[in-house]
């Protein structure tokens, strides 16, 4: 058979190249095109100039970045971002691991399967629904579920304003995140535990190991790789809210003017500065700052995960 020319080869594969090229164009417009827009972070962009103004506007160097660093809100929103993600790493990260260990340890097959199945139902509902639930549970009227209960048993005399207390916002954010996503992430750890060699458990039982010893010496080391991967994902999402990346939804939906001190984070600030206030260049610069730090975090976490294991290659990349 004669060797086909490049053109003939591509022509014979035209069905594939047609759809592939359509996808390539789509990806360019939807994803890559916006990266050109990043230049406005270094310019004074005027919305009135339209798309062309992106390239025409005057260069201002890193002015918008330095403006952000001296912005009266800078310290506060950076703190809120890191505190929210940090608290989630501390509290809602261990939850799925504990849940997975508990569910795999317990007997009563049907009860176990049912608990696991309902535990990740909240994952599939919208954050709008979860925020509505939080509002109904914690609202400061005496009819709010928690207040109503506390009043009825006489634990408090007056309704507590959970939703308008900045300190309570952090607690509610972590709580609702753990409630919505623990069951979902537990699936990964349950699968990891299921792949541990059952012979190890049998041997440990013969040697007289207690349940806690088995969990500590077999289960936890057996799932350390999965824990590591999820931890790296969480660290990479340090600005968006840990493994489930829930910071924005929470601050946007559960935040209000009374708790702004605790709820305002970098992404909601980008939204306010850009979409609401029309300061496009400034908002783009803030977004870029966040993306750059996130990148450092994900590569850093990946590098250290490799070092911890004594390998050249990280866990994730």
């Amino acid at each position: 058979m004669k060797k086909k020319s490049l053109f003939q080869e591509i022509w014979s594969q035209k069905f594939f190249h047609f759809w592939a090229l359509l996808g390539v164009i789509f990806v360019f417009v939807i994803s890559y095109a916006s990266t050109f827009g990043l230049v406005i972070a270094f310019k004074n962009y005027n919305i009135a100039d339209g798309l062309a103004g992106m390239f025409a506007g005057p260069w201002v160097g890193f002015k918008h970045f330095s403006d952000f660093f001296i912005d009266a809100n800078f310290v506060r929103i950076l703190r809120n971002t890191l505190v929210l993600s940090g608290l989630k790493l501390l509290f809602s990260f261990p939850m799925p691991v504990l849940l997975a260990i508990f569910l795999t340890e317990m007997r009563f097959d049907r009860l176990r399967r049912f608990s696991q199945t309902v535990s990740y139902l909240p994952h599939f509902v919208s954050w709008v629904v979860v925020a509505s639930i939080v509002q109904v549970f914690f609202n400061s009227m005496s009819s709010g579920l928690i207040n109503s209960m506390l009043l009825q048993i006489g634990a408090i005399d007056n309704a507590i304003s959970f939703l308008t207390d900045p300190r309570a916002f952090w607690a509610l954010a972590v709580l609702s995140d753990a409630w919505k996503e623990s069951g979902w992430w537990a699936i990964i750890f349950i699968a990891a535990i299921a792949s541990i060699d059952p012979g190890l458990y049998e041997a440990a039982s013969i040697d007289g190991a207690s349940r806690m010893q088995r969990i500590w010496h077999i289960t936890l080391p057996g799932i350390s790789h999965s824990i590591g991967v999820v931890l790296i994902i969480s660290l990479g999402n340090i600005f968006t809210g840990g493994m489930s990346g829930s910071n924005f939804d929470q601050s946007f939906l559960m935040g209000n003017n009374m708790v702004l001190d605790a709820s305002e984070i970098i992404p909601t600030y980008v939204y306010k500065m850009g979409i609401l206030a029309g300061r496009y260049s400034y908002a783009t610069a803030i977004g870029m700052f966040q993306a750059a730090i996130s990148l450092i975090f994900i590569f850093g976490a990946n590098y250290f995960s490799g070092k911890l294991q004594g390998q050249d290659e990280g866990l994730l990349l």
Partner: protein
Amino acid sequence: MPFDVFSIIISSLIIFISIYPFYYILVLSLNEGMDTRMGGVYFWPRAFTLENYTQILNDAKWLNGLLISVLRATIGTVISVFFTSIFAYAISPSWLRFRKFYRGWLIVAMYVSGGLIPTYMVFTAIKITNSFLIYIVPSALDYFFVLIFLTYYRTIPPSLREATLIDGASESRVFFDVILRISTPILATYALFSAVTQWNSYFDAVIYVHRQELRPLAYLLVEVLNRSNTSQFSPYGNAASFTTQSLQMACVIIAIAPIVALYPFLQKYFSKGIMLGAVKE
């Protein structure tokens, strides 16, 4: 066994914590708003009524929101399932020219984005904002699921395509009649994922849509959420704000209902789906 007692208590607690918040919303949606205001409603409606639901289903604004949500969940899903599956198929053959380029182009795009404002500018420039297109165009191709489809297509023997071609079928016939037919599990998984995502989305409507008649149910829920947030400040507010809450509860139930109805399928397909994302390539 003390652990057995412990495990029954804890698993009952898990079930209660997972289900009760939804159940409580259901109870409030079936209770008179003014009665709920007095507190003390926990496990069943004290003043049963269907009025909250009839109010909503007679309100043109809510019906319209429901319609938009249904439309974006169906049209958006059909388009996205089609484009995502055919694009993945088009770049899947191992003998395809430029295969590495196509794959690389996609994978880099997963990590690259101009962020909120530049994306907003692009979407405005290509004139898909403030129109129904904003719901279906950007989500027409799911990059992550392209990779999952690729993994799936790899398990299909190439001889299947060759045999069908020898029978005189065209390449597109191979895809539509053979490949799609044997890809049902992965198509169903992605269709469910896409429909749930579309149904739950509100933020695209917040940024890109200003026309009232294009706002989906989830957006209307955000509006109510903000309204009752501010009504928190007056514990003795007027009766209307409390009715707002009981209506809100009925809306939340309407927003949850399809998810619960699809749940048997969701949990069947997705407990496997999440693992695909967790495996290192």
